[in-house]
């Protein structure tokens, strides 16, 4: 990048966020908003970001932002879109923003309905793999072996993580993709792509959480990148529910490298568990690459 050139996409957040130091959800919002541009309305549901934006009477957002009840990001976005369309403002972008709790769990039915109706909105899920805002309780995005305050099972006895992008792809939406704050250029690229098309667009951003994963803040980018390289969160997109494209394939690492970075969080996994997970990850990668080749 040329440092002499001015920033081409101006920031659409003010500093002074209430996020923890090293918050990847904040970084995700920063880049998504910057790329979406000022002609955007943001519907924000309960979760870390409801707090990060700041308490009344302050806000960090430079775009219109509507706070809503839990699980309503998709239904709010639907309402905003309907009003904009009837008011002849169909050029305005609608951005629904929810965490893994809001998206995988309590807001799942609203999400599925909006995808089914092919609502012309971009839904972004920032995934820190637990209900972080309320103190690290498990969610449908918590991977087996991760420590939370509410999982009773240990290790691989825990339920598997939902594959939200596959769920969205099975709705046949125009665009469903993974992204990671470890690879911001890829995220920005995907938002740019999504901005140009209509219909229901979904991006699942992996946002490791220093507070909830018991990591020093300055390690989170590395951990995010390891998750991608370990192929636990591969970077790919699905067009129209059928065409698979692998966006980035950085040099792979074994899952144990990823787990080794998070000993406090992944304490529930034994070495044998890691082997089992590795073969499952390898199998899923084969499936993904086969789909990408077939397209």
């Amino acid at each position: 990048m040329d440092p002499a050139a001015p920033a081409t996409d101006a920031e659409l957040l003010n500093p002074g966020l209430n996020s923890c130091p090293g918050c990847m959800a904040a970084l995700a919002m920063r880049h998504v908003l910057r790329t979406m541009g000022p002609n955007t309305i943001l519907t924000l549901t309960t979760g870390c970001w409801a707090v990060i934006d700041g308490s009344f009477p302050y806000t960090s957002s430079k775009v219109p932002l509507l706070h809503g009840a839990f699980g309503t990001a998709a239904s709010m976005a639907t309402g905003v879109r309907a009003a904009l369309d009837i008011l002849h403002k169909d050029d305005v972008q609608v951005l629904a923003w929810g965490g893994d709790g809001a998206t995988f769990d309590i807001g799942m039915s609203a999400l599925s309905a909006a995808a089914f109706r092919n609502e012309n909105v971009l839904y972004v899920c920032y995934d820190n793999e637990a209900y972080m805002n309320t103190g690290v309780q498990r969610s449908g995005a918590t991977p087996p072996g991760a420590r939370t305050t509410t999982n009773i099972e240990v290790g691989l006895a825990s339920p598997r993580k939902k594959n939200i992008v596959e769920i969205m792809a099975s709705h046949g939406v125009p665009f469903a993709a993974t992204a990671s704050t470890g690879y911001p250029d890829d995220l920005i690229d995907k938002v740019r792509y999504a901005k140009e098309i209509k219909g229901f667009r979904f991006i699942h951003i992996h946002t490791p959480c220093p507070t909830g994963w018991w990591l020093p803040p300055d390690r989170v980018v590395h951990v995010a990148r390891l998750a991608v390289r370990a192929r636990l969160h591969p970077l790919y997109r699905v067009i129209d529910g059928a065409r698979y494209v692998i966006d980035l394939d950085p040099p792979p690492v074994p899952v144990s490298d990823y787990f080794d970075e998070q000993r406090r969080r992944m304490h529930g996994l034994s070495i044998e568990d890691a082997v089992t997970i590795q073969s499952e990850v390898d199998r899923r990668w084969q499936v993904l690459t086969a789909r990408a080749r077939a397209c």
Partner: protein
Amino acid sequence: MAEQQIVLRRLSDYPYKSIALGTTRANLTGRWRYWRPYYQTRRAPCDAHCPVGSPAIGFVQAASDGNWERAATMLREENPLAAVTARVCYRPCEAACHRRQYDAPIAIQAVERVAADQTVEVPAFPAADRPRSVAVVGSGPAGLTFAYYMAAFGHRVSLFEARRDLGGLLRYGIPPYRLPKVVLDREVERLLAAGIQIRSDCRLGRDVSLEELEAQYEAVFLAPGASRSLAIRVPGEDTGAVTPGLEFLRRVHEGGIRGLKGRVAVVGGGNTAIDAARTALRLGADAVILYRRSRNEMPAHVDEIDRAEAEGVQVETLVAPVELQRRGRTVTGLVIRRNELGAPGPDGRPVPVPLPGTEETWPFDLVISAIGEAVDADVAPGLTWGSAGLVVDEWGRTGRAEVWAAGDVVDMPRTVADAIGRAKRAALLLDARWRGLDPAVMLSRIQVAGGPAVSMAKYREALAGQPSSRAEDVVAYDQLNAEFFEPAAPRVALPQLPPGDGRHSFREVVGTLSAEAAASEAARCLSCGHCNGCDNCWIYCPDLCVSRESGHYHIDYDYCKGCTLCVAVCPRGAISTTEERKWRG
């Protein structure tokens, strides 16, 4: 830019429903911080290891932008003999280059060579208030360097050279296949343009004395080198049957020896021995190097040894000559005895232990001794001489007022680069003294990574009263972040004559890269310790605290929470942290 706090005191202050009235700029999250990140250029290892104080990373970065004028200007300011070092230096920069730990080091010397070939004018050095008169003895790398800097500062310099031509070992000791004479001539001419008076064919101790120079000049710089070849101590040596290596090379250079037949023995394992052997080869003889320790202990650079062998020089290790075989005045051979390595001696190197009963007689037509050169204390008997050379202090001063020295005459590493570096240091410190500044303070200001090299750029800064622009801690590899390096690109292959061709002439063996090839090699540079505007800090800051403006980054400390992600993701290690001192007011 912070905002005011909003306080709703009365019902009439409220909006009609919960609409935000201000921004989070009122929330100064900078107060949360325990660690403060800050941009701090650190020393790159290449810079830190260069004995000359050459701005390796500087000219490499400029070259990678294709800005050869800037590369050349930066280089020439710090290294007046850049075209020479670009050919003969043994590249401690490349040995230290951190990219070596990732794939292969940058070919810094090859980039230096392209930069050195550019014609540029170095911006004028700050002129001395009062020009002084300086005598320089010796026109080798040390003498030329000292003379150049002094003249560039505006002093009146007279350079005394014992031989007819300038250059010292550069001309007489290093063969043209390593350093073409036309290159040397160009370099010398460029230096002389600074305004140096020459007195050649004038030998210290014979034609002029130190005392005379002290009387006529305000300072004297001694760099006569060390050219007394050490004896290999075999019977019959002093009859002239054994040719000292430097003398051999000089005679070849002057045209006194044009061809050689038969087998030549070169006793020794250093650069001179290698040069003598490869020269003998080029004159038509077979060359055999005899070295008393093993290959590992050979002082010559391993690249030179490899190259010599590739060209056909035979290297025999753990052998020492015992006796000359002669017929009349003609040498017919050497009796050699084999050694084994013993315990380390006082210099730390293993002592060669002769193995009795292993003598053999090897036929030779010429025996060359190249086991080292000693200084000649007779040139200035009034000074203090140690066993390894003239005794000088950290600045380069002898015991006598305003008599300074550097180069092979002094006890220091015997390389061209070191000679240039020490001479440069002496020149800057003497100049500083003459400006009324304290050289000890100045030395600590201009040292590169703790010395011995010094930086002309830092000297300019000091003279201009500017604060020091960089820290001198050297970036360690683990302070870089290899995660963000570009995928591995192979190191450029240098153009070289095949050994089979090279050995038949004195043509330069290693060629110069094209500017494009050098620029793309330079682009492999990781920019250790130096921000190169990659934007990683800016892109990864979750709190919008990093802004960029005309190639510089700024941190907004009103909001920076000290997560130090910027430090972690900086591929160059150009951001440091310090503790935020909260409780000490």
